């Protein structure tokens, strides 16, 4: 499943970039994400992703690896996790790009999300919709947090 989102933030690029690497504040914007820890600064992080569709709950202990990093403009990362209780795995390939436009920073990201295992029984459409909702909430939360800092 491929998702493309773009969010315009009324804040300078440096500030947005700094925010992305402030793991605690950043993770607070990811719906259902908790217990974020830095394993190796700027390279590897762990967190737990908790999501719910009706009575179905998943909890993915997730490892996030930063694969590429271009100061102030680009991040390529990969997140993967498994819920052994339900027997499902999740893999997210994330590309984030930042660019300045007038007095705003445009953050665009492309997320390739793969869900494997029993969770897929819920149906591709339902999972896709949920993932889309999570990404929208995330984008909105980032915007609200950063613009609220003004």
């Amino acid at each position, binding site marked *: 499943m491929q998702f493309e989102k773009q969010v315009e933030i009324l804040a300078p690029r440096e500030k947005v970039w700094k925010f992305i690497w402030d793991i605690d504040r950043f993770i607070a914007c990811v719906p259902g994400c908790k217990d974020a820890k830095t394993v190796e600064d700027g390279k590897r992080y762990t967190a737990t992703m908790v999501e719910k*569709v*009706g009575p*179905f709950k998943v909890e993915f202990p997730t490892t996030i690896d930063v694969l590429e990093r271009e100061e102030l403009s680009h991040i390529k990362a990969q997140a993967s996790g498994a819920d052994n209780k*339900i027997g499902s795995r999740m893999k997210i390939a994330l590309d984030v790009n930042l660019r300045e436009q007038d007095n705003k920073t445009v953050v665009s990201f492309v997320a390739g999300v793969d869900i494997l295992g029993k969770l897929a029984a819920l149906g*591709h*459409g*339902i999972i896709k*919709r949920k993932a889309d909702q999570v990404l929208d909430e995330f984008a909105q939360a980032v915007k609200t947090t950063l613009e609220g800092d003004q």
Partner: protein
Amino acid sequence: MLKRFRLEEPESAAEVSELLGRFGDSAKIYAGGTELLLAMKEGLVQYERLINVKKLKGLSEVSGENGTIKIGALCTHHQLENSSLLQQKLPSLVKLEQNVANVRVRQAGSIGGNLCFAEPHADPGTLLMALGAKLVAEKISGKREITAEDFFVDAYETSLAADELLTGIRVPTPGANSRSAYLKFGYLERPSVGVAIALTLDGETVNNVKIAVGCAGPAPRRVAEAEALLNGKSKDEAVRLLPQAGAIAGRASEAISDLHGAQDYKEHIVGVLLKRAFNSIVS
């Protein structure tokens, strides 16, 4: 493999509500089990306790009084397809029930369980919406009625509170001029699209039009805009407006692309089914 669980067997709705309140997310109501047990066997959900409601009295009957048809939440699909009252008063619901899933599901599965599980590809909610049904929810502190529109929140999600249980369905008894139909289409066991329409035919004029679409999206939806388009129109005029109403209903279905079909395909089928359903009750 089904994991071990404790089975509670309360004898009243109040007791069920108390157990739900006490055990929260670790307990779940068990009626027919046709959806729940499959999900549990798959390991998709796990509960420490199942609250068997099958022994509750008075929730397995269909009756009619004061202009309302009352359907107990524990009525099985098989019971509903064979109810003489429904055959007489709500033939569209009988036809729907005759075609729910397969004979094993219809024998064990209950209408209440079907509605509460809120599986997106379930049939009954869509027709009940068009029929103007209200769902009765009970808990220790009281009872309330929820319109079918307000009951379905999202895929697998209803507006029932954590300690509430669905005890019955109330459908206004259709008048002599009332007509309704539910049509579905799918090539897998669960339907891709379901469309319901209810209206009154006063001479050559269609009134009180209610349209609902289900299965295509996360939950059944009423389509007020399409209803308004057809309401109060002559039969012929309504027929001319059906493609437009179908397109509106297709968009309102919030169709999701999945193995049951692509979004635009489902939206198209909504229009086709709406036209067929309308013609089947008006022609």
